[in-house]
């Protein structure tokens, strides 16, 4: 991720220089050239298909409604409730595009903004971006960034999280780097479930959107009014609170509970890991960390208190000298041993220590690994949901955290498959999109995320207004 942040900085100035005005001249040749020059990840991605996707399938209106937080632009329908709205709100939001130029170069254009849904749609048509990024909401319209006096500063932004499978490389036995399979996807399932519970139960956030990043990770958008308007200090505290894996690879333990019971945040993860559909047992079966001969056994030993360490070593070198064993068997042995010791009252402390160490192992191996720089501050832009990943052709669809364990990244609709569906259906462009396999995802976004979000936002605003009139003079929240 830091790579992209860096290239972002680099291309910023170039991008500004190269920025084009949407006057539409010689669009066709440009598109053709770009399509030819673009890196094609098989046949799943293609700029001409992308153009059709934006025209017929991409849910622009839902995205704009979401990003406006009830401050809808004039061409978006909405139920009026007498709230005060900021007509410039949408224009204060930064968008940026990654696109291919005529000559096939990838360029990044920042500081785009729109006053109406219509102009956003036109921009998609004109730029045909391979990636749309969403940034912060500033104190004035983004296109007046350098014009007026006074500083131009971000004021609001959704709190976002980025979890990438490459950060799990040291605990993945099945794949490496950009590759994923259903086995390692299970790490993401656990991550979604844990993050979902922490954000809801600990921080009282409700309007969460989990999105498949199109390749090998997930994004999470926390969109509550409270989250969006948080000052920097509170904003940064959330990822810090959640990143419990602090150790480095030069340390024996990447997580340390100092022989005590696991802290509450770890307990949440441990509970999630209890479920055999995706939990610790399943992970061990999939990744085979502690199967006989695995290098992870040495790492495991480093976590254990001396007594248990010795006992496990004895088991491996004597009991199991000539036979194989699986991770699940090894773990069962640890649990049985600790249970047996725990029966003697004076071993109470030792038992606690052993259990604490075993929890450390679980957390170190399975707790969500966040890229916290993405979450901190206001500066990081994040890819919009429903973009298409240019390498895989897969659409970045929302994930229902309740059903995260049923999500299969290899089975999400791809650009090609969707356009084929449109072509084969008796669709009429004027009638709007025909039925495609993207519909359930758009529907989920609309009914399970967007509409509760808009409702909750209204409620929060009313509550704040009421509180303000009650407690005037308090500088607090």
């Amino acid at each position, binding site marked *: 991720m830091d790579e992209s942040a860096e290239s972002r*900085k680099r291309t910023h100035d170039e991008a500004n220089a190269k920025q084009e005005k949407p006057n539409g001249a010689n669009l066709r040749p440009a598109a053709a050239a770009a399509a030819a020059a673009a890196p094609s990840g098989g046949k799943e991605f293609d700029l001409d298909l992308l153009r059709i996707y934006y025209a017929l399938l991409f849910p622009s209106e839902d995205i704009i409604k979401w990003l406006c937080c009830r401050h809808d632009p004039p061409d978006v329908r909405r139920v009026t409730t007498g709230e005060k709205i900021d007509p410039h709100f949408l224009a204060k939001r930064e968008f940026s595009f990654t696109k291919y130029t005529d000559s096939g170069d990838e360029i990044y254009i920042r500081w785009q903004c729109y006053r109406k849904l219509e102009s956003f749609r036109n921009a998609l048509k004109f730029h045909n971006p391979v990636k749309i990024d969403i940034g912060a909401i500033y104190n004035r319209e983004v296109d007046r960034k350098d014009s007026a006096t006074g500083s131009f500063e971000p004021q609001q932004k959704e709190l976002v999280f980025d979890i990438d499978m490459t950060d799990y490389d040291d605990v993945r036995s099945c794949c490496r780097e950009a590759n994923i399979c259903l086995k390692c996807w299970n790490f993401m399932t656990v991550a979604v479930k844990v993050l979902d519970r922490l954000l809801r139960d600990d921080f009282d956030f409700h309007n969460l959107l989990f999105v498949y990043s199109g390749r090998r990770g997930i994004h999470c958008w926390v969109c509550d009014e409270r989250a969006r308007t948080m000052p920097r200090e509170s904003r940064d505290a959330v990822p810090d609170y959640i990143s419990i894996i602090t150790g480095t690879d030069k340390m024996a333990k990447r997580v340390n509970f100092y022989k005590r019971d696991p802290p509450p945040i770890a307990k949440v993860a441990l509970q999630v890991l209890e479920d055999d559909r995706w939990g610790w047992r399943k992970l061990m079966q999939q990744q085979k960390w502690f199967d006989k001969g695995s290098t992870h056994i040495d790492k495991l030993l480093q976590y254990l208190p001396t007594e248990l360490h010795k006992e496990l070593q004895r088991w491996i070198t004597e009991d199991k000298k000539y036979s194989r064993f699986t991770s699940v068997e090894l773990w069962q042995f640890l649990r049985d041993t600790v249970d047996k010791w725990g029966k003697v009252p004076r071993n109470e402390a030792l038992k606690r220590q052993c259990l604490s160490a075993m929890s450390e192992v679980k957390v170190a191996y399975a707790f969500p690994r966040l890229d916290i*720089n993405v979450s901190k501050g206001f500066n990081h832009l994040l890819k919009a949901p429903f973009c298409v990943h240019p390498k895989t052709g897969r659409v970045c669809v929302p994930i229902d955290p309740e059903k995260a364990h049923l999500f299969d990244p290899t089975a999400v609709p791809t650009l090609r498959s969707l356009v084929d569906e449109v072509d084969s259906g008796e669709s009429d462009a004027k009638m709007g999109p025909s039925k495609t396999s993207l519909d359930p995802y758009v529907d989920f976004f609309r009914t399970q995320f967007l509409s509760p979000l808009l409702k909750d936002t209204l409620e929060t605003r009313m509550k704040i207004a009421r509180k303000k009139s009650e407690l005037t003079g308090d500088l*607090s929240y």
Partner: protein
Amino acid sequence: MQANRGKASAAAAAGSAAQPAPPPVRKGVFISLYREFPDITLPVRDFKDYAIARLKVLKDIERIYSLDATDLDASDDADMSNYGQMVRQREDKVMKSLYEHGLAVEDPNGPLSTERAKECDEHSHFTLRLAFCESSEKQNWFVSQEVHMLKAKLGSSSAVTANFLLREGIRYHSMEWNDIPDGLRLDIYDVSPGKKDQRFYQVPWEAAASLVARRKVVLRRGVAFVAEEDLKTIIANRYRQFLLAQLKCLQNSRHIVEVHNDPRFGSFVKNLKNIYLGPDPSAFSPEEQHVERLTPHNIDKVVPRSFPPCMRRLMEGLRSERHLKHWGRLQIWLFLKGAGMSMEEELSYFKQNMTLKATAFDKEHAYHIKHIYGKVGHMKSKPPYGCAKLMSGDAPPNPGPGDYHGCPFKHFDPGPLSQLMRRYNVPDGSTKKILDLVKGHHYQLGCVEYFRATHPDSAADGVGNHPNAFYTESCKYWGAKSGDGKVKKEEGGPADMDVDQEGASSSSAPAAAAAAASAAPAGGDTH
């Protein structure tokens, strides 16, 4: 041990009778969030004296908190009480500075009246706001020293703190330890066994952000359960946010221009801000210290001899992998720049030493290096990272697998660290000392010990604060040894911007302003 601590602070909170009944306010100390501007007119001379006095205190605070301002987030019991002790010691030092510079009254029978101290404290705060609102970097520096000051003033009595909260009109629900529901109490105990038996306050988690970030509180549905002894942190957070917001307001207000143009004190205010910033990285630049400049020609000789372990490791990483990850590159590039390498040299050196096609290098890294030297982008040269920043775990984050950045004293376990020390030819005795220091979280002192071990009979001045200070100090040392004439004698230290240098605390405003005007503006890395 923990239980004792809990009892002790509970007793303090209740106002123990053993001492002459500590009053819920601190006599002679003006504790305030400075929400209202004082409505008094002052002679310009006082105005200036007050501002200088406060600036001196803030500089003292910076110094008090800079040494081993690293991770004090200790977790075992012994460290916990050490930590408490360290906090108290520092706060005492801050109080001493306040007394010394007339912002608070220590001896009620002394010459300084409480009213005068209050006037000084209050006025100087607002004057310095004018001086430090200009950029977010200066704002941050000012705010963090101010917050330390407030905390020191509140001291260790939770009664003073609780009373202060009431006075400020801040009310939270609270519960006695025994009234806390069982499950919750267990969680609280797990998070902070040492705070057992205290009263717990229910605070919106945003107000307790710094405690949340360190997982020092239990959260339930957005509510943080904060122990009485931590209320101070809540006030500090609030003050920080409030003050920062005020400074931002001021920064964008038109009146600030009027102030800066005022003939009576405009230039004084403008110059005040220039004397604040802590160790200016340019103060130990090779030119400033008259030592040999680092170049691609001498680098191979100099790395093992004069690079601090953090940088030496990065160079080794570069050698073996012919590549470094993002934070590693940034750390070493900035350091080399600080050690005197020119931009052209750095560009060509990395072009040669990284496995990348020349065109790819130009595309990916050249811009970044130029950026660091301030030749593109914001056009501002970026200062090298200091030790505290390298250890902070926050931009640069803690190193992960395959990373070479960070500080080995902080980021290595004892095993790998002692291996590293052996590889760097540190005698076993010194390694043992280093490991002990590191165990007590004194990472920077570990680095000082390393320096002493590899530079026998040296003073190790400035080492442990900044990798570039390590470098110049080492170059000076070896320069003197070989007597190659590269090292001239130091002439009374670098052009120091320290206000303390111009004499006793009663210096007159014009002199101080002149001193301020002549001080070099610093563009330092404050955190």
